[in-house]
């Protein structure tokens, strides 16, 4: 802070007096501040605390700087002061009183993050109080930003989790009813169906990795259809066709099953007589195209739009959910396409890129 007397005339005496917050080198100050904020991203218990303390010490030109979380054990840069016990006592005192404490050269300030005590900044050395206060404010802002970022990330993850396809209770109870009905009359068949049911549940609950392969999706569909055939009997006729070259294509879990479920629920169940469902997977240039087609009741295209927009009522959340997941993974061009008209059946088409960087089966 001192301007050497024998180096007159100083070209910028006023600026020099303002150090360490000198405007002489804003780039260095800003980058040091950013560095501190980055290191505090994970909070006062994170791995960057020592580096942050080092940064604060350089900015303040203090002898020692310590950052403590609520445990009251400061992380020091470069090392604890000679009278470490006095510093620790001061930290305890500030944690207790939640107001600033100590007297120069040893000063401590509480750090309130979102109005709650989160830790203490301790400074040892000839540093102006105002500078220490500004530094403490900066640290608090960095901590608050870090918390916001972490919670935004959690929110994004929670949304993806919430978008996972859900097991349909309607189907679960139907399947269990059929299986229990067959236990005494056809024990072998009921056992077979029970194993199918276990596979269905296992696949639906799979949490490992976000992506699966077309091969596994089709296999899961076949298990699901085996159970549906037990429930619906002669009323359901299904054909599943998949071209081998798309088997290895990666896609999010449970894209197909809600579409097939929808076809059965809205196309087959409400009508009399046999309904046909055709599920196809094939390559079209660089895309893999999967379609689910039924010859059931069909619907007004405007209603299909409502359903895709998630306004179709609780019965059809499945389709809107798949649509959103596909768009969030592959971009806005890769949503579902629904072709339908009243009395004309329904065809739902999924188009996904065959080769997508970053999308790997889990």
């Amino acid at each position: 802070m001192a301007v050497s007397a024998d180096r007159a005339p100083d070209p910028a005496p006023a600026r020099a007096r303002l150090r360490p917050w000198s405007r002489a080198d804003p780039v260095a100050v800003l980058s040091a501040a950013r560095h501190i904020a980055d290191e505090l991203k994970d909070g006062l218990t994170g791995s960057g605390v020592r580096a942050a303390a080092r940064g604060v010490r350089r900015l303040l030109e203090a002898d020692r700087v310590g950052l403590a979380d609520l445990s009251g054990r400061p992380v020091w840069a470069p090392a604890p002061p000679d009278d470490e016990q006095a510093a620790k006592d001061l930290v305890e005192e500030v944690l207790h009183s939640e107001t600033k404490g100590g007297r120069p050269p040893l000063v401590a300030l509480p750090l309130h993050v979102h109005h709650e005590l989160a830790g203490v900044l301790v400074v040892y050395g000839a540093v102006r109080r105002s500078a220490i206060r500004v530094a403490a404010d900066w640290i608090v802002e960095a901590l608050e930003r870090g918390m916001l970022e972490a919670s935004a990330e959690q929110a994004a993850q929670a949304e993806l989790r919430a978008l996972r396809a859900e097991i349909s209770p309607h189907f679960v109870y139907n399947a269990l009813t059929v299986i229990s009905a067959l236990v005494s009359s056809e024990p072998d068949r009921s056992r077979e169906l029970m194993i199918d049911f276990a596979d269905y549940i296992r696949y639906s609950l799979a949490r490992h990795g976000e992506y699966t392969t077309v091969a596994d999706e089709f296999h899961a569909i076949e298990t699901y259809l085996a159970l549906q055939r037990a429930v619906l009997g002669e009323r359901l006729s299904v054909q599943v066709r998949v071209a081998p070259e798309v088997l290895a294509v990666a896609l999010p879990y449970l894209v197909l099953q809600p579409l097939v479920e929808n076809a059965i629920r809205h196309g087959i169940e409400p009508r009399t007589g046999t309904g046909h469902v055709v599920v196809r997977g094939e390559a079209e240039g660089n895309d893999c195209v999967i379609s689910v087609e039924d010859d059931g009741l069909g619907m007004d295209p405007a209603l299909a739009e409502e359903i895709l927009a998630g306004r179709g009522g609780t019965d059809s959340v499945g389709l809107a959910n798949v649509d959103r997941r596909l768009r969030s993974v592959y971009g806005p061009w890769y949503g579902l396409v629904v072709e339908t008209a009243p009395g004309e059946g329904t065809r739902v088409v999924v188009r996904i890129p065959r080769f997508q960087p970053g999308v790997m089966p889990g």
Partner: protein
Amino acid sequence: MTLSVLAVDDVKAALDELCRLLRESPAVSDVSAAGDPLSALRMIQNGRFDAVFLDISMPGLDGLEVASLLTKLSEPPAIVFVTAYEQHAVAAFGIGAVDYLLKPIRAERLADALMRINRGIPAARPPSEQLPDAMAALPVESAGRTRYVRRGEVMFVEAHGDYVRLHAMSGVHVVRMPISRLEEYWGPAGFVRVHRGFLVALDAVRELRSDSVGGLLAHTDVGDVPVSRRHARDLRESLLAAARAGRLDRSERRV
């Protein structure tokens, strides 16, 4: 050869069921049961087992730990894990397990696992590499003339008594040879057994089709090939592996 096996599971009902399925299998001659990992280790020490079917989640030593102890034996038995969760699969194969069965167990998956165990045990069969690629084309007689049918032309093979019928775009050609022999020769070239009486060329499969009754067909340009339940998994896995390796590029298939 028939196998002497040990089943290990700490849940009594699950152990009984596993033993029942093993006893029903013609590939198994002798089944022993252990209700906890320690008695399993004791039994393995005193007896000789070709294979051990191990539950993974058990108190004390879990199945993975038991297996890694077994691999230290001079002649370790084949290990098949039996578990409810798929997340152990990677670790299981890391230990060198022959197979990995999910609970509840399907009889045909168990049969598949037993087949894998038998394949792993060196059989007293002459090695098939004796005729390296002498079978890339087969002579067929038609109207008194002999011509050669290239393996690359053939889309699937159908057994017909001591003969096989080779289905190709150029027609159906009959050759005197049992299908099992042809499978040995052509297996390495991408022909897969999909049924007791059928071999199919992986790169000739245009579509897998399944219908309401649960039957599976491999569709080729010269007709549909039935796929039996016990071969379905093998075919799917082979096709998936071929697709991953980019070996199913349509443009390469000849007419």
